[in-house]
């Protein structure tokens, strides 16, 4: 028997007035897989993640995450998921250890287990040496790894990561990828990751869903998707074949500014 999928959605839709940010998305994410949502800024990736993490109620459709309904049982969903938002979620004024302690308490990890869980999360994410430094002094990659550590403490069935490598240099990105893989290997956690870097999706993900203008255009393994377009195709070519536009053509000054400043993505 295969284990229950960690995410199941049917026709999940979110509208903002006249604008439909996510239209009838139907997706399944299996246990312990790394699932990529790819598409340019404004494709609906963040809106989809916000619905799955209970931050935004769906307009219509249904979603089960870790077996619970996001609209009707949000508290139960929140107990079982981790979330690494695109923006900062570690507090710069606290040390790495203190940030983890705050999360451990919010997620109700029993007092006698807290210290050990925090230490093993710090080890897993390679942050032992810097645990007593305030996070303000961390590099971008270290902050990301701390945020991933925060999201793992309560051993969630699934972790959602929204553009986890935006703004990181190539070596910082590689380290984050390695740690995402370690998470799945060591803890059996499923990971849903949004990205507009096609190489990231190709390298990291077991399955990829291509989003364009709020719609799920296709779902498959990176290999399947590439093979469907041509023998030497890249995921960029897949995107272009599906939507008729190149992924780089998207995103003007506003998107660039948002990426650079790390400001709020249009929800």
């Amino acid at each position, binding site marked *: 028997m295969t284990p229950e999928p960690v995410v199941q959605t049917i026709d999940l839709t979110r509208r903002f007035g006249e604008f439909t940010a996510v239209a009838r998305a139907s997706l399944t994410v299996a246990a312990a897989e790394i699932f990529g949502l790819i598409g340019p800024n404004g494709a609906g990736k963040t809106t989809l993640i916000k619905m799955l993490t209970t931050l935004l109620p769906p307009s219509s459709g249904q979603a089960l995450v870790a077996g619970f309904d996001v609209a009707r*049982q949000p508290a139960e969903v929140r107990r079982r998921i981790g979330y690494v938002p695109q923006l900062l979620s570690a507090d710069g004024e*606290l040390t790495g250890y*203190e940030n983890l302690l705050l999360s451990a308490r919010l997620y109700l990890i029993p007092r006698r287990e807290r210290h050990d869980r925090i230490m093993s999360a710090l080890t897993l994410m390679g942050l032992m040496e810097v645990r007593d430094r305030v996070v303000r002094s961390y590099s971008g990659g270290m902050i990301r790894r701390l945020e991933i550590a925060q999201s793992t403490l309560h051993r969630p069935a699934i972790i959602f990561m929204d553009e986890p490598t935006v703004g990181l240099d190539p070596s910082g990105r590689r380290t984050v990828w390695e740690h995402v893989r370690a998470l799945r290997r060591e803890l059996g956690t499923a990971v849903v990751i949004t990205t507009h870097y096609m190489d990231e999706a190709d390298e990291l993900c077991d399955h990829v869903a291509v989003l364009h203008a709020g719609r799920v255009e296709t779902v498959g393994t990176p290999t399947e998707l590439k093979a469907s377009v041509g023998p030497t195709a890249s995921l960029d070519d897949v995107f272009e074949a599906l939507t008729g536009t190149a992924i780089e053509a998207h995103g003007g000054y506003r998107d660039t500014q948002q990426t650079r400043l790390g400001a709020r993505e249009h929800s």
Partner: protein
Amino acid sequence: MTPNKHALAPASIPRRSVLTASADFGTQVLAVADAEVRKLRHDPWELLSRAVQPILWLVLFGGVMTRVRGLAPGGTPYLEFLAPGILAQSVLFVAIFYGISAIWERDLGVLHRYLVSPAPRVALVIGKALSSSIRGLSQAVVIYLCAEAMGVRLSFEPTSLLMAVLLIILGSGLFSTFSLIIACIVKTRERFMGIGQVLTMPIFFASNAIYPIDLMPGWLQRISSLNPLTYEVDGLRAVMLQSGQSAFGLLHDVAALLAASAIVIVIAARMYPRMTE
């Protein structure tokens, strides 16, 4: 990858006892407040800089006004009348701008972290209110020291001190949660700055903080009787001073503050999660 077209059947919610739920609630409230204490420990300068304003009020305003005879009721020296008012004032001023930091946390993303956690929204709001109380209490230490140095006969009875702590926690929590509601409505820091200024003046002057209610015109007396700051000041007057007396009764003051706090907490818990939308 396409799921079946029937509606999905969610799992049933596991049962938790009331006792476990309350203990969890307490843990989560204290987690939020504890993070604030740690931040202040890393950077205590903010607390010190905030202490300047109440000292100036006591020394400058108090120093001049104490020469006006008959301003304070029953022949109390004006400085004694003023000290609890200034304490309440600084509790208000620190708390009322709390909403700015809530908006700042939203802009950074830290708010998302709280909202995706399993902590009930009410626990988050109460935890944040307690965080603000910690700042209020640090102000109190400064004002007690300053007033003592200026010859105000303060009461250091344990019960009085304990009641003062309770009143400060209630007052800070009340005004900071009120501020959080405003933040949820205006949503940007720029707009909040303007509104914060507009709010503090009437709350402060339509209270008994720096003059007795008897001196006010009738319409202002009626407004001040609806102003929670009036009860904060009245309660503090009763417990801070050796000659302390409450006009409404200490129990009445505490009840008024508790009721107002309960109202704003319920409203804030509904509005807070919508800040991320």
